[in-house]
């Protein structure tokens, strides 16, 4: 048997494939949280991204790459617009971040706006006119082991790698990145430094929305190229959990996301190989593992709150300094 069809290689390749939307969403959430804004609306924003991106590929005509680029951008921008609600409420009006984020998911999520849009535009049950397909990068996809894993993925997978590098460089190597971290750790200090706390928080909440939308678009354009109500099935929540696993560091979101990609794909891969267990057992793996990993992460380092921005979840009011 060809080594590239061995279960290890298939699992590794599909872990990356299924983990990629989580990379986008959790890097986005990480940026927002680094600025001190907890956004529990990721699930809702992802679904908005998924539905608008899918609408776009059905209605825009043109060459494949252009339609997909536009659709992903539109999905991201639609989710960005959704995150603006949260930003106004928690940064501008200093509302409770937890309640506002939950409200955002109820508003936009599986029984809200995304479902409404999908329903009105009659998107259900249509096959996508365009979808992200695996590329043969540099003609290397046939290489043993690394070929299918690294050189036979779709364009968004490679974009997510660039994103992680950019996020790292931004947070640790640029002045605005330093300011974001300051705003998340100690908004008072940042304010004294002359950093506009509210502006940074707005910008990063919106960036989080944009990336959640791209992650959502990945679901409707790459994983299952069609539209189903609530198709992200909890990925937005797993992305929020991933930020904790990653100790708020972008490079570690890759590890977490691919781990969960592995759990998500395990069911399909094993079923294709005649392992018979109830489908619900496989389907519940990512959720159960999220809790398990969360427990492991939160025990050892709980005391130090390693990596968590100190001002996460708290509104900043200048007069109360």
């Amino acid at each position, binding site marked *: 048997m060809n080594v590239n069809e061995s279960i290890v290689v298939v699992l590794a390749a599909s872990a990356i494939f299924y983990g990629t939307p989580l990379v986008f969403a959790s890097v986005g959430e990480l940026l927002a949280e680094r600025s001190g804004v907890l956004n529990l609306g990721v699930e809702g924003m992802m679904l908005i991204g998924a539905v608008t991106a899918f609408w776009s590929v059905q209605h825009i005509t043109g060459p494949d790459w252009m339609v997909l680029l536009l659709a992903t951008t539109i999905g991201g921008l639609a989710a960005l617009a959704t995150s603006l609600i949260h930003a106004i409420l928690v940064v501008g009006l200093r509302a409770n971040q937890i309640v506002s984020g939950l409200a955002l998911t109820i508003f936009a999520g599986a029984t809200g706006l995304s479902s409404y849009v999908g329903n009105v535009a009659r998107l259900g049950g249509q096959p996508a006119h365009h979808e992200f397909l695996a590329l043969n990068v540099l003609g290397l996809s046939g290489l043993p082991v690394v070929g299918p894993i690294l050189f036979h993925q779709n364009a968004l997978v490679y974009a997510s790698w660039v994103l992680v590098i950019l996020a790292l460089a931004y947070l640790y190597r640029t002045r605005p990145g330093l300011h974001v971290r300051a705003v998340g750790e100690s908004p008072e200090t940042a304010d004294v430094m002359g950093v506009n706390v509210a502006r940074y928080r707005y910008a990063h909440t919106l960036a989080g929305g944009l990336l959640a939308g791209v992650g959502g678009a990945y679901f409707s354009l790459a994983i299952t190229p069609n539209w189903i109500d609530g198709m992200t099935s909890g990925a937005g929540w797993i992305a929020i959990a991933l930020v904790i696993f990653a100790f708020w560091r972008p490079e570690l979101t890759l590890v977490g996301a691919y781990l969960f990609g592995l759990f998500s794909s395990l069911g399909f891969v094993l079923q294709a190989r005649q392992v018979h267990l109830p489908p*619900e057992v496989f389907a519940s793996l990512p959720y159960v593992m999220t809790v398990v990993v969360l427990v492991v992460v939160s025990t050892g380092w709980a005391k130090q709150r390693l990596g968590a921005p100190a001002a996460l979840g708290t509104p900043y009011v200048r007069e109360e300094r």
Partner: protein
Amino acid sequence: MAAFAAASVVLLVAGKDPIATYERIFDRAFFAPGALTSTLVTATPLLLTGLAAAAAFRMRLWNIGGEGQLYLGAVGASGAGIALHDQTGPILITGMILGGLLAGAAWAIVPGLLKAYFNTNEIISTLMLNYVAGLLLLYLIFDSQSYWRDLSTFSARQFPQGKVLADAASWPTFNLEIAIVPLGFGLGIAAAIGLWALYRSTVFGFQVRVLGDSASAARYAGIKTRRVVVVMMALSGALAGIGGASQVGDFRHVLDPRGLQQAGLGYSGIVVAALARYNPFAVPVVAVLIGGLANAGYSLQGPDFPAGLVGVLQGMILFFALGGELLLRYRFTLGSRGSLPVGAQPAGAARQ
């Protein structure tokens, strides 16, 4: 009111006349014959999941798992209903209530213990368990030969469904002339009073309030934080579990995975709790209002009233309630009871 104004814009964009739509909504929610009765049917689970969320949120314990705890309550209650099918009504129904209550509490105790002993973020863990509970429902009815599944006839084996409970397992109702009140709603009112009494006149209730206001103050006062967290989580899960039991006993009389999952009753409970500012007595009022809104939505949901709008409306009401809170805070700085947790009192617009 602002929420209604904003929703009008949505309706206008969707090509509907907002005023006529509101007239239809209120008519279908409260005034049309039998409308109040069906509004109470919709409000009953919201009352119980709303109380479940309000109880936990009051001490800033973010139990988002009402959804899954309600599923487990339905599993527990229908299991008890099947097991006790040859008993008399009162025993059967008490068994169902206890079954739902215990199953919901057991499901909630898991994240409660994780929160108390490992400091695991309860928002994520309760939410993840919602998905697991949903899959458990599907497994029990669609992918196994479980105790809950009806395997008695050929067609039931082909088209999976739960065992339909005996007639004696249907919960009684109270006819109050203006509306027929389901037993579950009565239980919810009793639970609201119980919760209020718990906060007001027990040591545990006092500890919950201290914890809600300041975790560090609670620690300095020697309150056993872990125990309070676990007990409160179990209590919250028990309330949601009764909501699930009521779904089985009052309305469905069968374990119906798809029906329960489409309803999203646990998540709506969060909306209800937030709008009620976690006040046990405000929860029934908000539950009836939101129930009426949802009920009108269902009855209007024809080809011209698409799915998803109920969630949009609920979300908007919450947004405006949250936004209005700031204005309230500014206006009533001196007069307000400043002891509520910071940012924990969304109300304003939605109260009108």
